[in-house]
């Protein structure tokens, strides 16, 4: 725009100059013209023409008056000569040129001249002859009279005409001059206007330029980032106060110096020079205009420090300049490092804590399993009533201890985010009845009445996590019974609009107001003697609260000290269709046919207990002491069921399972059930991924074992529930319709298989890509309720992000198995219309 203005101003100036020149030339010409006219007027070549002409007539009369008899001949001659000279002057003189061009005048003149020529001989003759010719001359004079008259008159007329013309010419010239002057003045006026405008524009420009400069200076001076401006040869033009602070140079010292010498560390100097050269040669920009970059820079004292910088180039009249914004990120870097360190430590601490607790619970549970198993076996032998009582007491203590350990484990699992609700259809009435039944003994001991009822219409079948619900209700009902003597404990259930509410009310000791607020906190127990008598870890309610929130609900308490308490919790629960033979494992042991069972267990006691339990039910049991032995046996013989311990010497249970599944041995397709004391849900998924069909938690209970054995063909259902949450696929089905659902599922299958192929390809894969891809598919898995597959993908994502190669390889290795089973399960799901 500036260039435009400049060129326009240039053109304007040129035009003005040319116009001025034209007008000046015009005026010069006119002036010259006027001067000529004036000169003509003043130099008056004309003399007094009129006078001369009339004088000619006068001279003629003077002459003619002397032509008479007895005239003085000398006077006649003199007068003739004077007249002659007069006419000669008129016929030759320059002043009479104009007149001579007039035909009338010229005619008269010619006549007079002819007459003169005729008369001269008479005049020049002798005196005697002249005297004799006087009469002739007199006649001749009379003849000429009219011509002389005409000469004088026509001269007058012509002269008057010429004078008019001359005046008109002068007037015209003067008018032209006036016009030219007017034009000149106009042009000058326009020129002045133009100059005034230019001047104003320049002033405006100057002012805005000054404002911009001031603003820029303010911006540069107040910027927290250092601002350095250099020309295209790297010489510093500007060095802001912040830059002074950062680099320890004073602007006055470095302006005009090479950037390289001032702020570039020696080891980067060569690269800097090469970059500048590249930029000059080919206009190649690597740092400039590429956003924020982190590099190293040099302070005045030579120390090297990290900077973050952004460089931009700008084109100015003086050539390209580069503007760098720099920030000292030494502190930021240190903070980052500290943060990373702290995070690593925290993660390590958290990891070691949960590992410690998991190990501890394992170490506690394994011997406890032995105790309880043997007690269970002992009860099947012939005992006297006293022994029976002892065994029951031992079992009670053992189970209590086991519960405590389980409580701690639950807390760990919840806090590490590993607790996921396992929502499925369940019969809530059956559950409540079981709980009331199990607590009725205790209640009768306390002389307390215990019962439950529907508050509102009954809704037996709902979808919820039966185990969690059972845990919470057991805890609340158990507490109520524990703290109520000679009173009443009642449970009221109300189902309303996809929510179920349980009110557990007692007429017991109640809770002091100051404790109600923190009753759900960890390790809170009543501190009265009575409370101690009842006992407890103080974890029960906090676990209940955690489970309620896992189920998406809320729990609250309302209590009056000394009068009783009312616990109330509400969780989401949709209506479910009744399913036969479900959720009643305690009540309905499944009849089983004798099976060929392989027990792979390193712990001798456990091995013994399991074998005893199985053999008691009539099964044929083979035992193996470690994973390798198990693999070998499974290869030789076709077992109906393999119970596989996880932690074993030589070859652990997971590896053994994978080998059995991968091999072509006799039992490659047999059902494999994991036996573990570690029951973290994520591990359960890992086991399933390894090819196991189900997981049993130690200590092994006969009922559990029987359930697993009896399910046989139903085992797929169990694992399906673990792998798939059908509710999600139902939702999707409802939203998109049957046709779309099939299409989507097909696409999902294709995507999953593509991803697995990609993950297993031999190409070197980028960890970020792996994390991104698995994350994407994990989201889709959730849509179809493929919970297990989704979790496996998430595990891969996490490992990829953390850069844990070993974990990643193992997770990727188990993915195809999980997928294979998930795909089958998804295909079997027939969502309801």
């Amino acid at each position, binding site marked *: 725009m500036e260039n435009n203005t400049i060129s326009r101003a240039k053109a304007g100036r040129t035009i003005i100059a040319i116009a001025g020149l034209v007008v000046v030339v015009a005026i010069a010409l006119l002036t010259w013209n006027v001067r000529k006219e004036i000169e003509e007027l*003043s*130099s*008056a*070549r*004309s*003399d*007094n023409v009129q006078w001369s002409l009339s*004088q000619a007539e006068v*001279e003629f009369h*003077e002459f003619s008056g002397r032509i008479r008899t007895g005239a003085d001949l000398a006077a006649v*001659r*003199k*007068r003739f*000569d*004077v007249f*002659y*000279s007069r006419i*000669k*002057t008129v016929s*030759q*003189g*320059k*002043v009479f040129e104009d007149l001579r061009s007039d035909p009338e005048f010229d005619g008269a003149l010619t006549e007079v001249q002819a007459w003169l020529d005729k008369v*001269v001989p008479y*005049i*020049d003759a002798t005196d005697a002859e002249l005297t004799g010719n006087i009469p002739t001359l007199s006649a001749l004079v009379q003849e000429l009279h009219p011509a002389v008259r005409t000469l004088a008159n026509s001269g007058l007329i012509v002269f008057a005409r010429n004078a008019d013309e001359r005046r008109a010419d002068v007037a015209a010239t003067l008018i032209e001059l006036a016009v030219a002057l007017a034009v000149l003045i106009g042009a000058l006026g326009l020129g002045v206007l133009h100059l005034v405008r230019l001047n104003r524009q320049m002033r405006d420009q100057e002012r805005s330029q000054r404002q911009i400069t001031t603003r820029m200076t303010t911006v540069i001076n107040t910027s927290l980032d250092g601002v350095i401006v250099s020309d295209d040869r790297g010489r510093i033009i500007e060095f802001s106060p912040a830059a002074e602070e950062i680099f320890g140079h004073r602007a006055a010292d470095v302006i005009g110096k090479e950037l390289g010498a001032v702020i570039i560390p020696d080891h980067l100097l060569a690269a800097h020079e090469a970059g500048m050269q590249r930029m000059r040669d080919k206009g190649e920009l690597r740092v400039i205009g590429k956003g924020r970059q982190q590099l190293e820079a040099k302070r005045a004292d030579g120390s090297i420090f990290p900077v973050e910088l952004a460089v931009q180039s700008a084109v100015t009249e003086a050539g390209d300049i580069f503007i760098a914004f720099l920030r000292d990120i030494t502190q930021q870097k240190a903070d980052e490092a500290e943060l990373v360190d702290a995070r690593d430590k925290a993660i390590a601490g958290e990891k070691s804590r949960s590992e410690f607790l998991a190990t501890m619970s394992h170490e506690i549970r394994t011997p406890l399993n032995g105790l309880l198993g043997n007690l269970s076996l002992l009860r099947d032998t012939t005992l006297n009533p006293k022994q029976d009582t002892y065994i029951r007491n031992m079992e009670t203590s053992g189970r209590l201890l086991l519960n405590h350990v389980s409580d701690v484990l639950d807390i760990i699992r919840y806090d590490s985010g590993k607790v996921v609700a396992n929502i499925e259809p369940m019969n809530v009435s059956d559950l409540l009845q079981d709980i009331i039944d199990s607590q009725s003994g205790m209640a009768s001991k306390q002389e307390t009445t215990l019962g439950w009822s529907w508050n509102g219409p009954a809704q037996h079948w709902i979808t919820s996590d039966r185990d969690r619900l059972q845990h919470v209700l057991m805890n609340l009902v158990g507490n109520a019974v524990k703290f109520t003597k000679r009173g009443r404990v009642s449970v009221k259930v109300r189902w309303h609009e996809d929510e179920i509410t349980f009110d557990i009310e007692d007429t017991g000791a109640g809770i002091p107001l100051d404790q109600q607020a923190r009753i759900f906190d960890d390790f809170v127990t009543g501190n009265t003697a009575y409370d101690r008598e009842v006992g407890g870890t103080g974890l029960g309610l906090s676990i209940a609260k955690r489970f309620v929130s896992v189920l998406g609900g809320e729990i609250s308490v309302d209590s009056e000290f000394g009068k009783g308490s009312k616990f109330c919790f509400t969780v989401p629960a949709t209506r479910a269709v009744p399913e036969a033979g479900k959720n009643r494992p305690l009540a309905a042991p499944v009849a089983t046919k004798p099976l060929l069972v392989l027990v792979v267990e390193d712990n001798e006691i456990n091995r013994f207990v399991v074998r005893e339990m199985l053999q008691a039910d009539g099964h044929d049991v083979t035992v193996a002491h470690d994973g390798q032995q198990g693999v070998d046996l499974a290869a030789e013989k076709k077992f109906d069921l393999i119970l596989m311990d996880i932690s074993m010497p030589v070859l652990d249970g997971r590896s053994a399972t994978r080998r059995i599944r991968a091999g072509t041995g006799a039992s490659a397709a047999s059902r494999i059930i994991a036996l573990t004391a570690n029951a973290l849900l994520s591990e359960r998924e890992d086991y399933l991924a390894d090819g196991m069909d189900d997981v049993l938690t130690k200590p092994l209970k006969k009922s559990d074992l029987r359930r697993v054995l009896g399910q046989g063909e139903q085992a797929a259902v169990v694992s399906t529930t673990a792998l798939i949450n059908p509710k999600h696929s139902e939702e999707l089905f409802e939203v998109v319709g049957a046709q779309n659902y099939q299409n989507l599922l097909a696409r999902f299958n294709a995507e999953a298989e593509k991803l697995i192929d990609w993950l297993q390809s031999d190409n070197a894969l980028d960890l970020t890509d792996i994390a991104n891809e698995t994350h994407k598919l994990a989201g889709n898995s959730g849509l179809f309720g493929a919970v297990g597959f989704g979790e496996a993908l998430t595990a891969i994502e996490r490992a990829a992000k953390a850069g844990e190669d070993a974990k990643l390889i193992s997770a990727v290795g188990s993915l195809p198995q999980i997928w294979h089973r998930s795909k089958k399960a998804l295909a079997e799901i027939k969502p309801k219309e």
Partner: protein
Amino acid sequence: MLKSKRKFLAGISLVTAFAISGVSAAVAQDIILTVTHDGQSLTFDRDALEALGTETIETSTIWTEGTHSFEGVSLARLMQEVGAQEGKLIATAVNDYSVDIPLSDAVEDGPLIAMKMDGAEMSLRDKGPLWVIYPYDANSDYRSEVVYSRSIWQLDRLEIVD
């Protein structure tokens, strides 16, 4: 152009007869100029005038065609001769035409009282015998109405008045 050429001719010489334009007879030395100054009259014949020294002016005039050479006595020289210093001249022609010429006009390289045109004496018919000629071509100041009116021809009398 003005060419100065002074001739000092001693005394009155006899000039041969003239055969110009019908001047009848050349009787020895007619008076051609009378100068009146302080009540005295001085008369000059052709030789007397030439004796004062002549100068030549080459110039055109508005009354003639082309450039001509005029030879005569400069007015300044004549005024010096008669001792006139200030005032004016009343110049009168044969036909009694009369005009005033200020003495200030009598300067060096100024007007001549021309006696010859193109080397020939001038007859009455050729505006002779004497013609006051200014160097019109040499000086634009002389190309004015006033100067033209002072360029009297057929001059025969000069009167000097204060």
